[in-house]
């Protein structure tokens, strides 16, 4: 099957993730959407690696996962602390600072 389709899939996933970031209020969900985008990237990497017949892409995918994990650690810490303070994980509630 033509690997290019995987690229389309990746692009689709990426767009879905981005849209999710834009439309969802809950910080956790937003964050998950971001993770989705990262995974879309991974898919793209792997596909390209397959197309080019070298393994860089696959290795990068591993790196990405690690980075994503690190992001989870940091991100959840922040989001949780926010949640504990405000008893809501809605991104829109966090709008003290504006203008």
């Amino acid at each position, binding site marked *: 099957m033509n690997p290019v389709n995987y690229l389309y899939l990746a692009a689709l996933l990426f767009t879905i993730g981005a849209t999710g970031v*834009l439309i969802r209020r809950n910080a956790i969900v937003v964050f998950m959407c971001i993770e989705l985008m990262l995974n879309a990237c991974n898919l793209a990497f792997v596909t390209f690696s397959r197309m080019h017949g070298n393994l860089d892409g696959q290795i990068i995918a591993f790196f990405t996962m690690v980075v994503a994990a690190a992001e989870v650690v940091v991100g959840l810490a922040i989001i949780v602390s926010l949640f504990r303070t405000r008893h809501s994980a809605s*991104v829109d509630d*966090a*709008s003290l600072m504006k203008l």
Partner: protein
Amino acid sequence: MENLIALLIAAPLLGAAVLLCGGRRLDAVGHWIGTVLAAASFVLGVVLFTGMLGKAADHRTLTQHLFSWIPVGGFQADVTFRLDQLSMTFVLLITGVGSLIHLYSVGYMEHDERRRRFFGYLNLFLAAMLLLVLADNYLLLYVGWEGVGLASYLLIGFWQHKPSAATAAKKAFLVNRVGDMGLSIAIMLMFTTFGTFAFGPVFADVDRTGQGKLTAIGLMLLLAACGKSAQVPLQSWLGDAMEGPTPVSALIHAATMVTAGVYLIVRSGAIFNAAPDAQLAVTVVGAVTLLFGAIVGCAKDDIKKALAGSTMSQIGYMVLAAGLGPIGYVFAIMHLVTHGFFKAGLFLGAGSVMHGMNDEVDMRRYGGLRKYMPVTFVTFGLGYLAIIGFPGLSGFFSKDKIIEAAFAKGGTEGWILGGAALLGAAITAYYMTRVMLMTFFGEERWRNAPTPSPAEPSVEPAAETRGEHAEPHPHESPGVMTIPMIVLAFGSVFAGGLFSVGDRFLRWLEPVTGHSEGHSPVSALTVTASTLVLLVVGAGIAYAQYGRRPVPAVAPRGSLLTRAARRDLLQDDFNHVVLVRGGEHLTRSLVYVDHTLVDGVVNGTAASVGGLSGRLRRLQNGYARSYAVSMFGGAAVLVALTLLMRAV
């Protein structure tokens, strides 16, 4: 010899410096310092005069180069003095009459606590006036020209606490500035035409350039002359200038400064001779002014303003003569000198009268003063006879010559100008007789004088401001005041004869101004005869009106012309409406424009940027997701742009 010329100016200048910077410690002796220095300058002048007489007629011109003043490229202005017969005449007149009036002022200003400063100003005036007549180039002349303007400004406004005086002074300076504009433009024209503005070179090159340029220069010089000599249309300041102390009126606004215009025209004879159109303009101005002044003089009840009108008219004669070219130059100057004597005498007389009458100036509250102040009466009377041109007295000779010259111009112009001159003579006789009668004859109207109606514009406000309506006790003035009057009276009686016998004055001045006998359509005899007839007529009418009938203490309403004449023929109203009002509106609207438009544009830009900022600021609404949207949009645009760039 020529090294003395600078001293002529230095003496009064020193006086001015000492008196003005000296401070109060000089109050006691200040006036004498001033007088002595003025006299010193006169003596010096006499010495130079005798020295000059000793020389051949065409070697009498002395020049003294002091230093290079403004050297810039081709523009070379030097401080150089030139003493020839013409300037000599003026030096003697200025310093002579000047010294007399200094003397007179010692008495007149006795009770003024600022007398020292008054003398300082007088000395300053002498210095400036001498600079004016001694300058060897137009720029230096310009310095003197404005210098006398400054002195006149200071002296007219000497009683600054009187708003009227301050206003009059300002008006005089401003009107003169308009004239000065003419002079400076004339100088610029000379520079562009001849590359210089020194008398000698300019006159030498006159024939090298076109008539148009010369006419322009001539007209500009005429404008300057109009300002300084109170000729129509720049005459309006002279009447108000009477706000100044009377000695000032006598010296500056009768004898010397106001005649500077005549000097300028005569001095620039070479230019005018080559520019007939300019000459015609000069004669017209002269003729108009001599009638204008005369008419105004008829209507005034304020003795000084009446005299001012007459001054205007007499200078009109001189300008007319000067405009006639070589036919008239000499007589213009001659009339100028004789006029210097008798008009100064008349003013001093008027001053003496006011001195005796608690500074009352309204002739309608005089009357019958001859027995209270005999000396004043006699000297004033002689001056009167002289000015109306009574046979044998100075005015007769000088004025008669001018009228002849006017006819001698030939053609219709000649007739018109001559006619005007004749008519002027008649009116002169009328108004002077009127003054004479109202002041010294008739019943004593100053007893239980009623307060004048404020509506009367000719009554000077000083009378009210000082609030002296108590019955005055007329008395003769002290010696320091009468002596100058007597001397001047002698001048006004004999000067004319002295000059005319054997054409002395003509031959004296001819080398400078040149002279040519015009061929008059009417014989000199007829002119003289008709002058005398008109003289009698004028005086007769005046006698009929003011000598026979009693003079009302409050002026009757009078005919339209009379009322117009009282208001200086409405010139001030015109100026007020057109210039003052218009100017005020212009400036006010400009202030508005500057604030709203010029400044507004800038402030508007600033405000709009601020507004834009305020609007953009709202995008920063604090919602992380909207930030994300902008990022996403931004990314999209970025991608699109990049692709687009490759596409194009």
